[in-house]
């Protein structure tokens, strides 16, 4: 049975008072995240082939939608070119699409400041634009 006393925290309190505070003044100064941090999704439109695996594996419904970005003639047939559109407001940053992309077109950036007043700014349709 340890001794019971009052104010056992006083010593540590005084010590802490002269240490550097832990608080980070976040919006001022640069945010620190680790190298592996999973932030906003980014796509390399050049590498994307429109295979659609990302849309299948994504665990969050309607985050990745395949849209027809254009038409392409192969011989005498006309094929649709499909490209993903990312509704990042639904994205949960799990990175499953990054894991499963065979072409290395996707990556998660360190950007986590996604707050916005306009939801539409979080729709990423880079891949469709380049296909046109």
């Amino acid at each position, binding site marked *: 049975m340890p001794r019971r006393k*009052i*104010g*056992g*925290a*006083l010593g540590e*309190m*005084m010590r*802490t*008072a002269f*240490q550097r*505070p*832990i*608080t980070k*003044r976040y919006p001022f100064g640069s945010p620190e995240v680790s190298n592996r941090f999973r932030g906003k999704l980014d796509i390399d439109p050049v590498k994307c082939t429109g295979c659609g695996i990302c849309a299948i594996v994504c665990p969050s419904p309607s985050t990745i939608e395949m849209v027809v970005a254009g038409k392409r003639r192969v011989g005498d047939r006309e094929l649709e070119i499909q490209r993903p559109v990312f509704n990042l407001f639904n994205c949960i940053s799990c990175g499953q699409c990054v894991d499963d992309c065979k072409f290395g077109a996707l990556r998660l950036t360190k950007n986590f400041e996604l707050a916005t007043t306009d939801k539409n700014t979080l729709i990423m349709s880079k891949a469709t634009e380049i296909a046109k």
Partner: protein
Amino acid sequence: MTTAAILVEALIFPGLTFFVCIAFLFEWLERKTAARMQGRIGPVVAGRFGILQPVADFFKLASKEEMVPLYADRLVFDFGPQLFFAAPAMGLVFVPVTGPSSILSDPLDLLFMLFILAFSALMAALLGYSSAGRYSIIATGRLVLQYTGYEIPMIIAMVTPAVLAGSLSFDGIVAAQGTYWFILLAPISFACFLVAALAELEKPPFDIPSAKTEIVAGWMTEFSGRALAYVKLTKNLSYVFLSAIAVALFLGGPLGPVLSGNATVQSFFYLLYFLIKLFAVGFCIFAIRTALARVRIDQATRLFWTVITPLSLLQLGVALILR
């Protein structure tokens, strides 16, 4: 002194306005010091080092919509906060600040002071009771129970210096401390007074009537807007008030080595000593506050009745012999 001069002194300096500023400063210091002791930085936004934060909070609250619960007793609910504020504001007039004598003084100061302390607790209880919330009612019960605990040791602790000085006025008590501060003669009384002050101010470990994790905001739960701003300001003012009483009764008030000079320079020194002592007492209170956990109401009452009251009585007995 003319009545007008007294009025100016009582309302502006060193009276109400001055002490309200000190009250804001106290809150800022409390928050900042507690934050640093806990490894945080505390308020930083309003003013340099966030020093204006309490003022900003006060005005923000005062500008908010005020809500009155359906079953509230309107008379007490509306006028209570002002009366509650009046208690420490009035009491502070009797404390010597810029010289060995206070703005108003009377041979029976101390008794009036006891009345004001009791009135303050009564107003808190009435405010809680008038708002008719469930949490407020429970808190009022706790408040009154706690009051029965700390009131007696507090009175005894306050009477001890009076016995030592042989006077019931603050001026007399302060004057009697020219050579020895009473903290040296009655250290236990001082400690008892601090503990009772913690209970009166509802600071941990005795913040039982306003324990936020149990009964939300205690007896203040139903208050909002201006009333809440007043109540909060009053609590800070009470903090200054009790610290000032402790300074006057045990630490020699504004007395200290005064260089010879004209009256203004002298009063400046008195003020300086008073403020140093005031903040020292205030710091003691918030260091204790930061280092302890909250106790339960039954434990608090037991502590006051079985430990603090006998101790203060003992010290009173010693004081009677010393005298």
